């Protein structure tokens, strides 16, 4: 909590690759020892977060869903303001009414779109629309065909909304670039990847993540990203074939278990099992849930670790290739941590039917605070507040598609 603002501008930082101009006549100055890296601090309390969350949930129920925009805003305010970097807290200045208006605009555009579809169908067929084609089917399919590619567009617009409402030391963050370009990129890569049996995943990930990171701003400066798909292809190929192998082994193990159960003298046929399940007694229900749990455990033990091995590697790579001004970011998140994180989050949400939401948010915030290291110092004179830039309303489509709960 010292005043580092003025001092840091005069000293050249210990920075690999940055050549400090040294006057030829002066004796060579020893470089100051590099400062230790800093971490984000999250000092939110689970109980407080629960009060905010349950309160907005209660009001959401009582208003039949209309309060959720304001509830989501207050949860974000709590989370953002309990994160701090270099001793200063983050700020979230979004408003519930903005989310609400965004929602109304999204619903309005869907209505206009469906009206246009209705008009076109009427123009094309008039009253002679064949009876087996239902009007509702046409409208649903039109919305799915147009809506699914729009999802990444809405996602990018949502990030932009959240970033333009975020500030640190009074300076706003932001996201430049076009959500339409990003949406087309995501859709194109998705199609190419599907045609190539997911083998271009690293190229897609680096390309999309690079677009996002390079367009992120703090004040008037953009973040940078220097990732190359070639760097992570080796690990990805390893993951790709390990994943296939893991699935083969899983199918093998499951068929051995099922075969063993049904061939033992006391075993039951599939029909007998269904018959038992149709007239459940407590013990049948208990066995039923135990079997489901066993299957999920098998997936969690055999498939998930391979996936986490790749996820952790990919996260470490993407974070370490991003920079801002003279700041570099490093995370040491491990396969085991990601695995434990995902498994416990899943269990919490499943067993609390969503009421564990704040707990998962809390765990996520703590993981970020524990695992993100920031090297270097920010040069206050190099960054200035950006003029304008905030869009009026946001996240409408995202809310309509029902994704993202924070």
């Amino acid at each position, binding site marked *: 909590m010292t005043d580092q603002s003025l001092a840091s501008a005069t000293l050249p930082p210990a920075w690999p690759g940055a050549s400090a101009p040294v006057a030829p006549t002066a004796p060579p100055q020893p470089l100051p020892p590099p400062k230790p890296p800093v971490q984000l601090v999250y000092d939110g309390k689970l*109980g407080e977060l629960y009060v905010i969350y349950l*309160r907005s949930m*209660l009001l959401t*129920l009582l208003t039949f869903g209309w309060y959720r925009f304001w509830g989501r805003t207050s949860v974000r*305010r709590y989370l953002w303001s309990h994160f701090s970097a270099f001793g*200063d807290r983050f700020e979230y200045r979004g408003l519930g009414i903005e989310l609400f208006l965004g929602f109304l605009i999204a619903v309005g555009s869907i209505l206009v779109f469906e009206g246009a579809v209705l008009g076109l169908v009427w123009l094309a067929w008039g009253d002679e629309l064949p009876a087996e084609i239902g009007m509702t089917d046409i409208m649903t399919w039109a919305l799915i065909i147009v809506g699914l590619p729009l999802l990444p567009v809405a996602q990018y617009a949502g990030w932009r909304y959240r970033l333009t409402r975020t500030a640190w030391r009074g*300076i706003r963050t932001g996201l430049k670039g076009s959500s339409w370009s990003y949406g087309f990129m995501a859709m194109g890569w998705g199609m190419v990847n599907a045609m190539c049996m997911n083998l271009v995943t690293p190229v897609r990930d680096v390309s999309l993540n690079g677009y996002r990171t390079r367009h992120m701003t703090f004040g008037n400066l953009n973040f940078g990203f220097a990732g190359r798909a070639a760097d992570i292809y080796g690990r990805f190929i390893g993951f790709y074939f390990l994943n296939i192998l893991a699935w083969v082994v899983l199918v093998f193990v499951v068929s051995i278990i099922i075969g063993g159960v049904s061939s033992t003298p006391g075993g039951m046929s599939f029909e007998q099992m269904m018959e038992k399940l149709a007239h*459940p007694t407590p013990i049948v229900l208990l066995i039923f849930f135990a079997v489901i749990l066993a299957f999920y455990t098998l997936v969690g033990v055999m498939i998930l670790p391979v996936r986490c091995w790749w996820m952790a590697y990919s996260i470490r790579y993407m974070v370490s290739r991003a920079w801002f001004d003279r700041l570099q970011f490093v995370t040491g998140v491990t396969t085991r941590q990601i695995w434990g994180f995902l498994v416990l989050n*899943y269990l919490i949400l499943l067993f609390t039917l969503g009421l564990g939401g704040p707990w998962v948010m809390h765990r996520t915030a703590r993981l970020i605070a524990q695992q993100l290291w920031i090297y270097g110092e920010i040069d206050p004179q190099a960054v200035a507040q950006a003029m304008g830039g905030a869009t009026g309303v946001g996240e409408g489509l995202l809310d309509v598609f029902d994704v993202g*709960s924070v």
Partner: protein
Amino acid sequence: MAGARFYDGLHPTAYDVVLRASTAEVVATLADGRILARWPVSEIEVVSDPWQEPHALMVCPRQPGARLAVEDLGYREALAVLAPNMARVAPRRSRVTPVLGALVAALALTIGTMAVLIERAPDAVAPYVPYSMERRMGAAVVAAMQGDSQTCEKAEGVAALQRLVDRFQVASGHPQKVTVRIIDMYEPSIGNGRERKRRVVNAFAAPGGYMVVMAGLIERADGPEELAGVMAHEMGHIVHRHSVKALLRAYGFGLVTKLVVGGFSSDVGTVADAGGLLLALRHSREAEREADRTALQLLDATGMRADGLARFFGKIMDEQGGKDGAQQMGVFSTHPPTTERIEATKRPPTGAPAMTAREWQALRAVCD
């Protein structure tokens, strides 16, 4: 964080400042005595949220973009009393444990009330759903069923069935006339299609008083009593508005689970949906029992021979090789066990015939 921090709104610089405040102005001074902000109290706006944020953020239009952040509780309490517009500087965080307890209780009460409402409200609300709306929904359902199947429209046969149903409608006191549609639908053929396609044996009560009868049912019924039994059962569904109630219940359950589960995990949603489906099936079985009871009342009220329903159930069970499919399906079945229904609907073979022999012949030939 002792003291306060000043951000100039131009660069990401944090200045540790000392605040001096009077009822007239707030002054932020650096350690070396330099003054960074001198803001009249009346012009200060508190932009932070005293409920959610651990610090107070003040802004002043005299220095656009600049912020004063105060975290120290003593400072904040002192600043809050300077003027009404400064009240939000003070933290308003409530004590977690009692508030949490109250919230959990209120939530449990709300969700419990809603659950009871979902169980009970459809029965009370269904009569108030506008008939025109119900009629439109029913027309859409019937149109979808007609699809590429043949609709049987021989006037004499349709009229015979309509007369039978009209008698039940009058006896039940149901205010709206029932519209009968006969559809010749076949079960989807499996295999090479060489075996004869089987007709669907069924009847449905769609919303809006539409009664859809499959030609297979007329073909399979031995005599008008069996058909009359099934028609009286479907009339029971119409009288009790079972289709509308089921729709309302599904809608209400979907709304509440969506609100509670939120947008977290699709698996959480799946668990909730599975629960909802089992609940809906239980209501469906209960509705079938109610329709069976009403069917017997209607048959008695019109003085018809009432043994057809139980006989028809028995025949269907025999054709399945004596197995009770609904009983085997248990909690996954839309209908109660057939043996239970046979027991409940057994009647002696006495009473007036459901229709004349001539009418019955015309109805048998309705699809030709």
